[in-house]
């Protein structure tokens, strides 16, 4: 079992703190639903944990099994067992998907995979996420639909078998079938001992992957933590009660309930409740 401890993390973009002293600890046995209003730091947290150069760390500490994480480069963090499924994966022209996956898998191994080992691993993973193996010949994410990109992120999670997987709105843009495939892959990965931080606005994904904990990020801090019942409560009551009960002011005007349906909508811009 591995443990990540985040203490007083302050981070953001140049000139602006988004995370303002965030504390959170979790193990590779945990699956945490990370909730919170838009713009309060969920994606920033995942990006900072993986080392996205877009973000600056202003202060605080993050350790994995007691070892400092923030001084490591993104590739070193990956080798420590961290994985981030991006909200909007980059399209890389001219880079063949299969070549990229092979390079990524080999980066995690002492001895490079043989052609046949690579082939078998890729074929199995493609089958698992329900994408034709032919797609491996295409350039990385180039011309992929939103749903294909998301499945592709899960494919990489399967190939790299991380200790911790951070999923940033993995369910946005997925149709019902794709959501089932992705949830099944997450559940299998849980059984292999991977811990999860899952950012989503939709209860549907959480119903299928059953997080054991919930963390609500408001204004760059974990405002409230709890069990799965906390995610349920936010799904039905929204974030308003946090303000009333805990006295935490939610600045943004777009606070809202979680949406129960995610069919063909973009979680960032569309409010399925029509409000």
């Amino acid at each position, binding site marked *: 079992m591995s443990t990540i401890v985040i203490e007083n993390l302050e981070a953001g973009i140049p000139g602006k703190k988004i995370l303002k002293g965030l504390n959170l600890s979790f193990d590779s046995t945990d699956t945490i639903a990370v909730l919170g209003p838009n713009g309060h730091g969920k994606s920033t947290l995942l990006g900072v944990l993986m080392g*996205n150069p877009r973000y600056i760390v202003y202060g605080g500490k993050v350790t994995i099994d007691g070892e400092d994480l923030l001084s490591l480069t993104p*590739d070193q963090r*990956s080798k420590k067992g961290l994985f981030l499924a991006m909200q909007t994966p980059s399209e890389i022209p*001219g*880079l063949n998907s299969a070549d990229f996956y092979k390079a990524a898998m080999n*980066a995690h191994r002492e001895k490079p995979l043989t052609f046949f080992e690579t082939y078998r691993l890729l074929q199995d993973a493609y089958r698992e996420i329900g994408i034709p193996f032919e797609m491996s010949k295409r350039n990385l994410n180039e011309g992929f639909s939103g749903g294909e990109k998301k499945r592709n992120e899960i494919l990489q999670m399967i190939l*790299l078998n991380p200790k911790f997987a951070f999923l940033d709105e993995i369910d946005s843009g997925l149709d019902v079938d794709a959501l089932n495939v992705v949830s099944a892959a997450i559940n299998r990965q849980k059984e292999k001992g991977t811990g999860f931080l899952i950012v989503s606005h939709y209860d549907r994904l959480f119903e299928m992957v059953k997080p054991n904990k919930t963390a609500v990020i408001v204004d760059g801090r974990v405002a409230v933590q709890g069990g799965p019942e906390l995610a349920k409560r936010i799904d039905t009551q929204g974030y308003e009660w946090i303000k009333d009960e805990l006295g935490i002011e939610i600045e943004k005007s777009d606070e809202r309930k979680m949406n129960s349906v995610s069919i063909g909508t973009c979680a960032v811009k569309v409010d399925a409740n029509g409000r």
Partner: protein
Amino acid sequence: MADKRLSLLDDFPEEATYEIGPGECFRLSLASLNNQKSTHIVLRVAENASVELALALFAEGKGVINIEAILEEGASFHAVASTIASGASDKKVYLSAIHEGGSSKALVESRGIVAGKSRLTLSGTGHIKHGAKKANTRQEARIIVFDKGCFASASPILKIDENDVMASHGSAEGMVDEQHLFYLESRGIPEKEARRLITSGYLLPVLPYFSEEEQAKLNEAIERNL
């Protein structure tokens, strides 16, 4: 498919003119692998003839590559160029299409990578002359800049002396996209390897214009010079 082909590796003529007869197809593939030379080539492309030009300039060194295609009625010219200017290279690549005849077409796609203390210019003129009605010309040049001490200039030029034509150009110079690098690194690939994967992918479109045997040599040259 080309009726005639000519492939020159490291051995460019200092000056040459190739005449392509009416309706003929010609493919000219030039590559510098170990040794960069200068060259000035004129392609005279007769009525309804077509030329495919592939340029793979990967050797470290200095050189001026100047290639002009003179296009008669209905002639077409497609150029694909990939250039690496690494170490202390100084390369100037001019690929021009001169539209003498109507309905002639040209597409010039230049890509380059400049690193170390090198200088790289990707330029060329799409020139539609008076009388070349319905001519269509496009000039593209893109350069990825690796290091701060480099000089890069992507500057395609259009000269239009006729109405009723189509002409466009596009150029871009920039660093390797930080988010692209992060994406690859976040999968465990070290920065250097990530850069190599991204940039060799960027240079690849030129490869299919060479034989398999030549492609192996080109790949080797990319590995060596990046």
